[in-house]
């Protein structure tokens, strides 16, 4: 299940193709401090615990930490890559339960926990999260997406 398909291959993911228990193709991230600086610039988040060792230590961290919002971005990528260009992301909830550090290998995982049709729209609910190098979940979340239905076509 760890193979990440390209977006174009997933262009036709349909509601009927999805079942409860399905796992999303994992996305693995190995962020370095350079990526944190890139994210700081791109997101305008210049809180110094993400790039200044001294500030991070004064705030009680062993070293600089990954932006929580960057972890959210990766979980968004997990879901949108899986659903393809005809899906729509409706809800994305992410909790930063534990901090993560550059240099770690972080794995974004997800699975289908519910499928239902509401007002003719195919809705799929996902449990998502990010596991750290030890395999512990640091960043649980959930998402709701809509997918096209064959019935509607």
């Amino acid at each position, binding site marked *: 299940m760890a193979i990440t398909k390209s977006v174009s291959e997933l262009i036709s993911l349909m509601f009927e193709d999805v079942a409860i228990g399905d796992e999303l193709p994992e996305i693995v991230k190995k962020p370095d401090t350079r990526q944190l600086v890139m994210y700081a610039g791109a997101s305008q988040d210049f809180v110094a615990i993400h790039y200044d060792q001294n500030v991070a230590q004064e705030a009680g961290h062993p070293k600089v930490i990954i932006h*929580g919002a960057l972890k959210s971005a990766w979980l968004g990528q997990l879901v949108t890559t899986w659903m393809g*260009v005809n899906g729509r992301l409706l809800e994305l909830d992410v909790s930063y339960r534990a901090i993560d550090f550059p240099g770690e290998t972080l794995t974004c995982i997800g699975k289908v926990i519910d499928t239902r049709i509401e007002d003719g729209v195919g809705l799929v609910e996902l449990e998502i999260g990010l596991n750290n190098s030890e395999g512990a979940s640091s960043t649980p979340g959930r998402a709701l997406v809509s997918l096209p239905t064959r019935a509607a076509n």
Partner: protein
Amino acid sequence: MTTSPSSGDTVISEKLRSFIGLESIAVMYEIERHAVQRFACAIGDTNPLYTDREFAQATSYGGVIAPPTFLRSLLPGDYPKLYPEPFAHILDGGSKYRYNEPVRVGDRITVVRKISDLFEKHGRMGTMLFKISEINYTNQESRLVAVQTTTTITYGMGEKDSGVGDH
């Protein structure tokens, strides 16, 4: 961790409490394709919907869109009065996004934030202030495209880290 009793030693002063429901000064952003490209590159997302005009036009979106959490880069404005942040350090607790439609390159998005709740907890880091904020993103056609609800945690005394109080 326990929620503190509403006793006299709370950090949530009347002045701080007066920020609940207060709207930030609206800020409008023009969504520029290079900003979207830089964001997608920074998070390591190679989805052509965010960068490839021809590809995106051929999809149901009809044009280049921004990644879902690109909204983070559209910083809300200040409150009309100075927010009296009591603590020095900041941690992001999480975000909940509700999307009505994607942000598109070329959109003009107006951002308004308001604090919906303030509460404190006591833990390993001492007293921590939890701030729940709701950020509304409205496009040039006055449609609410998304809402982000954030939890911001501040804690600890001393010199304020740069950026504390902005989030």
